[in-house]
């Protein structure tokens, strides 16, 4: 009788080393594993390199050494075009500053991945999914508005929809509640965690806000992570 094969982690980092070009900052992570559907928060002070970690996982930045495997792909081995295609299909990104395009409506912002990469095809099913997501996060009545007409909380909800509309395997959130007041912070976090659960995506969030850590399956201290230390349960 053979032993059950453990599922491959959604995010796996081994002996990662990264240094900004011409910069002093260096990042070193001996090991990191994030399991499928796991919801992980990385806590650490501002400027410690948490955002860089997300960029490396998403293939936005490339490591100087080590291995990064995200959603079954060796990110560092892909060329630029393949990394972009991988990112737009398999990774959803949520930013602290929302990063919505102010000249597009809410619906058009949600559908941007489909308009900006030929690997994705915008059809009725996708539009329906966008409407469903908008309904889930409570902005269904604001789809034709411009981002400038929305509150911060609403804008971040739009960003969550944009990150999830492609049905990604991994959602990477960079301080998703950093710009929100406590009420909106809790609401957005509820929505993000709920949507991620429904889509069975893996969530890796970086934050410096300790008040939200209890909502995650696992919390990683960024300093300990770099030193190869244990995660905080």
């Amino acid at each position, binding site marked *: 009788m053979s032993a059950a094969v453990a599922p491959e982690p959604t995010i796996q980092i081994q002996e990662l080393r990264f240094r900004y070009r011409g910069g002093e900052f260096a990042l070193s992570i001996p090991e990191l594993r994030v399991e499928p559907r796991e919801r992980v928060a990385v806590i650490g002070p501002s400027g410690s390199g948490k955002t860089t970690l997300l960029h490396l996982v998403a293939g936005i930045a490339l490591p100087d050494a080590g291995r990064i495997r995200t959603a079954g792909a060796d990110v560092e081995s892909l060329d*630029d075009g393949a*990394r972009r295609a991988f990112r737009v299909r398999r990774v959803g990104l949520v930013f602290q500053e929302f990063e919505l395009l102010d000249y597009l409506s809410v619906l058009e912002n949600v559908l941007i991945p489909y308009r900006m*990469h030929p690997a994705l095809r915008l059809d009725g099913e996708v539009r329906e999914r966008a409407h469903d997501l908008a309904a889930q996060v409570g902005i269904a009545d604001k789809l034709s508005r411009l981002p400038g007409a929305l509150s911060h909380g609403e804008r971040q909800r739009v960003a969550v929809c944009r990150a999830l509309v492609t049905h990604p395997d991994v959602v990477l959130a960079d301080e998703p509640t950093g710009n929100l007041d406590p009420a909106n912070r809790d609401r957005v976090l509820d929505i993000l965690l709920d949507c991620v659960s429904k889509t069975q995506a893996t969530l890796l969030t970086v934050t410096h806000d300790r008040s939200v850590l209890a909502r995650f399956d696992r919390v990683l201290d960024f300093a300990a992570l770099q030193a190869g230390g244990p995660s905080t349960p």
Partner: protein
Amino acid sequence: MSGPLYLAWRYLARHPIKTAILVASIALIAFLPAGLDSLVDQSAARLTARADSTPLLVGAKGSALDLVLSGLYFESDPPTPVSWSALERVAESGLAEPIPLHLGFRARGHPIVGTSLEYFDFRGLSVAAGRLMAMLGECVVGAGVARELGVSTGDSLLSSPESVFDLAGVYPLRMRVAGILAPSYGPDDRAVFVDVKTAWVIAGLGHGHQDLRSPEAEAAVLSREGERVVANAAVVEYNEITEQNAASFHFHGDRSGHPLSAVIAVPRDEKARVLLMGRFEGGDETVQVVRPAGVMDELLDTVLTVRSYVVAAMRSVAVATLATAALVFMLSLRLRQREVETLVKIGAARGSIAVLLASEVVFVLAAAALVASVLTLAVRHFGDAAIRALLLT
């Protein structure tokens, strides 16, 4: 519309003022040289057409350009006059048909052209209302004059007094409007035509007054010596020529000495033209014969040289405008750097981002090209009509 094109379109639509300014400035700078070229060409063609259709112009020696501008376009001051004998010389040569032109007087701002009926045939002018002048004191007005002054056949026009305070000077003549010409979209539209004798009456070379032999005029008689009657200041001079007093109008002096501003000479053929020009080429000759087309060509050469400088200046401005537009695009790109970074992070294809940014430039240039083309076509189609309207007014 594909994704990046749609986003480019949405960006431009979201910034309509910036887009409109860019489109308008690029369109204008593209249109102006071509539009100016087209307008100048059409104006030049219209100017030269009149000169081309006037084979020869006879006038006093002096500036050929002044003679042509005055004799053909009724512009500038009338040139030094020649005498009627110049016309007789042309006629007697048998080489050309002469048409007299007397200029210098005006009626409510419009030039009075003293000529003969042959002028209307020569210029191909037709009467839209009434008839051509048939008797002394009648006038025919151009379409532009009729429109501007609101006169119609049967109305009167008063020639402008040349010197209001000169008691011995020329008095205004009331002219009856016998006809109105159809528009010809040239200088004739702005002129008042009279018989050359009527022009001489305005000039004071001919006049009409009460019959001093009649008993009613006794008070105006200073002395009588046989057939010779001398009038005093009480004699009534007519300032309007009517059927009743037309017979009293008469000219003093030898007609061959009466002045003309110019004579249009219509030679029988090319040989006659050359021969006629040769006859007026003597060193002591006081009369010159000019070929208006040649004179206008020289003038237009100067105008066209100026135009080439203007067009060159416009092209420099165009380069500066395009450079400014490029700067605007680059600054816009810098302002949108964060947007581009976001698209890269999301995973937008490199080609899609390039198409997004490039298509904004292409949309603006295409819109500007469209506007410039429409304006250029409009000038080509309606430029001539606009020039005509300008000439008519």
